């Protein structure tokens, strides 16, 4: 007797809010990966340009132009990375209380989540001030 296999539809992620949140969380990874790729490109361009300009100072302007393209999109790609990082932080800190090896009630989980957010904000401001102070 043939049985009908009841598999999810191709657009199953549209069905429930939990599925959408899941993809929202997972695909922050793509934004961060784009940011990482951009920085690899950036670092590569800088190192390459230093070597090239040291040996051939009078290089073709076309080549120079192509070499310095990543410098133009500094703001755009860092913004993409920043959005991805914020999404990742908030969702990951939301997930963290689940990973802890204790049984926690919902209230305790929310408390830990808010504590983690506070710790994150405090650490962020501290690091920012430190970095800025050492810069100036």
């Amino acid at each position, binding site marked *: *007797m043939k*049985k009908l*296999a*009841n*598999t*999810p539809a191709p657009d*199953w992620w549209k069905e429930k809010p*939990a599925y959408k949140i*899941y993809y929202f969380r997972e695909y922050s990874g793509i934004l961060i990966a784009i940011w990482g790729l951009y920085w690899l490109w950036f670092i590569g361009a800088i190192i390459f340009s230093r070597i090239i300009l040291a040996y051939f100072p009078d290089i073709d302007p076309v080549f120079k132009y192509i070499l310095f393209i990543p410098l133009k999109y500094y703001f755009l790609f860092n913004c993409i990375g920043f959005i991805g990082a914020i999404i990742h932080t908030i969702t990951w800190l939301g997930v963290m209380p689940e990973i802890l090896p204790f*049984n926690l009630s919902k209230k305790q989980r929310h408390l830990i989540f808010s504590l983690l957010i506070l710790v994150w904000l405090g650490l962020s401001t501290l690091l920012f001030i430190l970095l800025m102070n050492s810069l100036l």
Partner: protein
Amino acid sequence: MTKKYTIRIRRYDPQTGKNWYDIHNIYAERRMTVLDALNQINEHERAGISYRSSCRMSICGSCGTIVNGKSVLMCNTFLKDLEDPVTIEPLRNFAIVKDLVVDTDAAMEKLRDALPYTTFSITKSRCESVQTPKQLEKIKQTSQCIKCMLCVSACPIYGLDYNFMGPAAAAIAYRYNKDSRDHVGEKRLDSLTGRNGVWKCNFVGECSNVCPKNVDPAGAIQKMKVMGVLHCIKSALKPKLKSKSKSKK
């Protein structure tokens, strides 16, 4: 006080292989559940719908279906809480036997991998194994599982990869691993951290949302993952010791 409801039921005839929706109109009272509605349809309209049910008080876990897109126990869902065209479908990720009856054997078989039993050590002076209320508290939540397989039905990863052990097995494994009377924890972790074990879970979290007993399989799997990492590091660091002790035996 009665209210009219339109009920759409997904039917499947295994002999012809046909697949269609039946539409029934019923007048329901306030306290009527979806299961009562189906009983009424079968009794009064001779619809001949096949479905499983037994206890009518969400203990046996046999009347799991998808109602308005959410995996629920029919005896646990009241019609007054639902939006009007009530759609009843069989559980997802399983083969349909007939109408709303599904074949849960595949997922049930995977419970074996979780080694769902405690083994008592007889070498202790006392034969009975004692458990304090504090020790019970650790496993109380996960031991409520009634194996209704709603979590497996809600898991999209199980639907896309049938080799995954599924949230039910993982939750049960967690329950037995945390049991103070248990002595096969290492062996259970071996099978759980295997190729088709907990690593395939991406933490969608819907299994915990649909659980009628608040077992929280998703959280249990994440905890198992942490335990699994520690276990794997341990077993990677001392494989020689194990083989030596085995050869001695």
